[in-house]
């Protein structure tokens, strides 16, 4: 007679680790830790990258960001939250990406490619609004876009964002405010 044995899925050690412990484990070169770090933060980094460089290049930015960590080129030192640290790396990677000629022109087109709504009037409106907003974001200067995305969409404080961008707190607020005004103007002009 066969015996039924109940199997309990063992939770991998990395999944139970806090963000900081995971980042330290990555610094020690633990491949499982880098996988877990990626699983935990890829969505946030990808969303951030998409807003900075557009959907087409976001994948490259995400890949290069986490590769820097995997290769030990960037090691977490505990002075900021892990998410902030990753966004800082992504910011630098995106800046390098952007340097290639024509990137900015392509960005506009890339941001326009918001998937069409599947059904429903409200969803269609929301999609149209998102497309407008993304076009407006793409039209901003790099400085304004970075500050706006970090503070308004990623929820970072001006001080944290300032550390990433190499700017003072006041400068960051100024950029965010200017960016918001430009986005509103763009979207409202589009609607008219």
């Amino acid at each position, binding site marked *: 007679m066969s015996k039924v044995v109940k199997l309990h899925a063992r939770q991998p050690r990395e999944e139970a680790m806090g963000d900081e412990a995971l980042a330290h484990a990555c610094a020690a070169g*633990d*491949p499982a830790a880098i996988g877990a770090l990626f699983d935990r933060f890829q969505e946030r980094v990808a969303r951030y990258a998409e807003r900075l460089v557009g959907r087409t290049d*976001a994948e490259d930015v995400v890949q290069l960001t986490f590769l820097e*960590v995997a290769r030990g080129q960037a*090691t977490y*030192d505990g002075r900021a939250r892990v998410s902030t*640290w990753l966004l*800082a790396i992504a910011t630098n990677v995106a800046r390098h990406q952007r340097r290639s000629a024509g990137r900015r022109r392509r960005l506009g087109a890339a941001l326009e490619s918001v998937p069409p709504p599947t059904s429903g009037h409200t969803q269609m409106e929301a999609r149209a609004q998102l497309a407008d907003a*993304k076009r407006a974001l793409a039209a901003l200067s790099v400085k304004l876009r970075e500050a706006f995305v970090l503070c308004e969409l990623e929820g970072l404080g001006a001080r944290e964002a300032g550390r990433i961008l190499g700017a003072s707190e006041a400068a960051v607020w100024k950029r965010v405010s200017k960016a918001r005004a430009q986005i509103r103007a763009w979207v409202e002009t589009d609607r008219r």
Partner: protein
Amino acid sequence: MRRGGPRPLAVGVHLVSCAQCRARVADTEEVRSWFDDDEPVLGTEAREAIRFQLQAAARGARTPRPRPAKWRGRIAFAAVALAAVAMVVVAAAAWWPGEPARIEPEPGADFERIADGHGEVVELRRGAATFDVDEVAPGARFAVRVGPDEVRVRGTRFRVVATGGRLGAVAVAEGVVEVFRDGAKVATIRRGERWRAPDAVAAAPDSASAAPSGSRIAPASALPAPSSALASSASASPMDSATASPSEALSASGSRPVAAMGPVGAASTGRERAGRSAQTRASGRTAEPPPLDAAFDRAWQAHVTGDAEGARRAFAELAARPDLGARRPDVLFWLAQSELRLGERSTARRRLTVLLEEHPTYLRASEARAQLRHLEESP
């Protein structure tokens, strides 16, 4: 939708009475809401591909991802340029008589270089040493022998640890080496990998006798940038918080370093030219090992595990030592990092200033300068 947690009570109270601020907040939240998007940016396939590549990179493997078409032309151009440079280098190498292998013995290392017409063999009797060997000509050889074991080289940079008169561990920073035990090949170690005898003692090179049998290769997690030995591998950090490991270490279990790679310039007294017709011998002995490497690795372990206080204490003890030598800039830098973690900004600032005054060309000088600038700009 509000990001960044609940609004402070005082702000809420103010908003009740201030129409202007209420309008501003409404404006901010409306603009934010335009960006609400549930569509995932990365598809499952892209996610899995990146995940695989990350783990391969962490293991030190190289799995190049196909580049978009726009890169192909550039890569082809770079390849042609590289090939041209390589041809020039090969031609120059054929003309140049050739540099001997460079050996950087660690404190306590006892070795002997034996050169003959076929190349060179280094007999490492005790301790650890790092070898930097240029491309070995076809038919020639360069080998490191530890008792009956041997590491054969074609041109590489690697570190060998002798344990109890046998080969204890090998870590390769560049190139490929083959490990032989009792005359039989047991492993081929590539760049970024390390090998150690499974029963070798981890505490320190040659600290106990061992009777090894078999072997184990561990990916060396892309061999982190060491203190000063492999300075060329340093890379720019994403912001002033980004750092890299200061110590190239072999590890018994993948977590505990055995001994850090010694600094460049810890000069060997036994430098010999290979390729002589008559067999010659030269030996190099250094003083008994002070526990400098062990202390450095303890401090580093405290740093990477987030024990800022422990790291600060350990690095401060190290900084007070008179025998730091080439390790001094590393110790000052990491001491400053520990102090920064503990919020001791003015001490860290002074520390970084001293570091830059004493060692303006230090590997991490630009990072230290950036931190110093940051500390000065936001006191």
